[in-house]
């Protein structure tokens, strides 16, 4: 697992209060991990803070699963 992937998972575990074993790449924040719309916004903000990137709203809307978050960040974090 990449460094980015493990940091992303740690944030999700902390913010959504879920077990690490549930945080697999296919898991959807809202359908599988119990996030509501505000939780999702908070997650994006935490990724921005952790990786020092700005995720534009139109990009944020495409991040709905753990795998999508990891892929986006691996591509955009320098």
């Amino acid at each position, binding site marked *: 697992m990449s460094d980015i992937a493990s940091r992303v998972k740690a944030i999700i575990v902390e913010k*959504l*209060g879920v077990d690490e074993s549930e945080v697999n790449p296919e898991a959807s924040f809202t359908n599988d991990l119990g996030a509501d719309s*505000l939780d999702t916004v908070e997650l994006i*903000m935490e990724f921005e*803070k952790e990786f020092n990137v700005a995720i534009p709203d139109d990009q944020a809307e495409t991040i709905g699963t753990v795998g999508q978050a990891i892929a986006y960040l691996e591509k955009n974090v320098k």
Partner: protein
Amino acid sequence: MELKRVVVTGLGALTPIGNTVPEYWNGLINGVSGAAPITRFDASLFKTKFACEVKNFKPEDFLDRKEARKLDPFVQYALVSTDEAVADAGLDFENLDTHRIGVIWGSGIGGLKTFQDEVTSFALGDGTPRFNPFFIPKMILDIAPGHISIKYGLRGPNFSTVSACASSTNALIDAFNYIRLGMADVIISGGSESIINEAGMGGFNAMHALSTRNDDPATASRPFDKDRDGFVAGEGSGTIILEELDHAIARGAKIYAEIIGGGMSADANHITAPHPEGLGAKLVMSNALKDARLTTADVDYINVHGTSTGLGDKSESKAIVALYGEDAYRLNISSTKSMTGHLLGAAGAVESIAAILAVKNDIIPPTINHFTDDPEIDPRLNLTFNTAQKRLVRAAQSNTFGFGGHNASVIFRKYED
């Protein structure tokens, strides 16, 4: 239209002197002080370095971690005391009409800690607005009754009342009114507050409202004592379940007392100082008595606002003498803030609980920390100094007065068929 009778069927308390109602009452009748050095933040640069904090409270004992993180302390407190009250009342919501069960909740300020933290974080940044999406719904005062309704699925009247330190008394009066008008069967009422943080203590310190007796916190809240020097900040929550009498009887509920009157008034005098002659205080007590259809001869106990400030205690004692006349010297008076500190928007709720239990148990909790008589306080008043007193309590009045000049007072009576 005939008004319905309304009774108290459940109580919950999370206070600086006890985290449940039995612990709270035990603290009250034993004269326990809740004051101690502040642990929530480093208060070394503050004029006041002590307060009445809730002790040994871990939110995760009551709420799941993810949930607790999204709740300001004043809402965590509200949920915990309400849990106790719901269980105490034996309310089985599955078998009740939850469209006729409401929540009316008071707080003076709401999520001050949340506001402080978010704004501080913004101010320390580069100007990019990175506000947490939970900032607003975590901070707003009315989120407390919102969360209570969500937790139990209650779809009746739901809102908050705001009148500073009278807030939760106003909540009780509103709850009482809606039930006696037939608009609800049960209302979870009360209030909560949590302002022991930098913004809260700094703000009240700047007003010279707080005691600065840093060398002896436990005796700092000394209502009616000659050497009182301001109030002691407190925090916590009180829940009172009000229920329409027939509804309570039908489900075999235990009944603590009957709520029989609520009064409201304004000082129309100054933003923070009480009227020097206690005109607003006299009027609110009088309004509550009229609403209850009682005379001054019928009341045996007044749980006063009595914050331990120079002006406030003097004007309230004058108001009692002016309204009650000779009856003022017959009844017991006490300020339980001498023990709990001032719970601000939650004061009305926790002090009403003290009044309800005084009516139920025929015991008057004391005004502790009395050392020196104040020549400006009528010496004939029985202020229940230092030790609890046993006496028959047919009815008790509970007063609260808030910055802005808001006054609210409620009366509880022994329940009889």
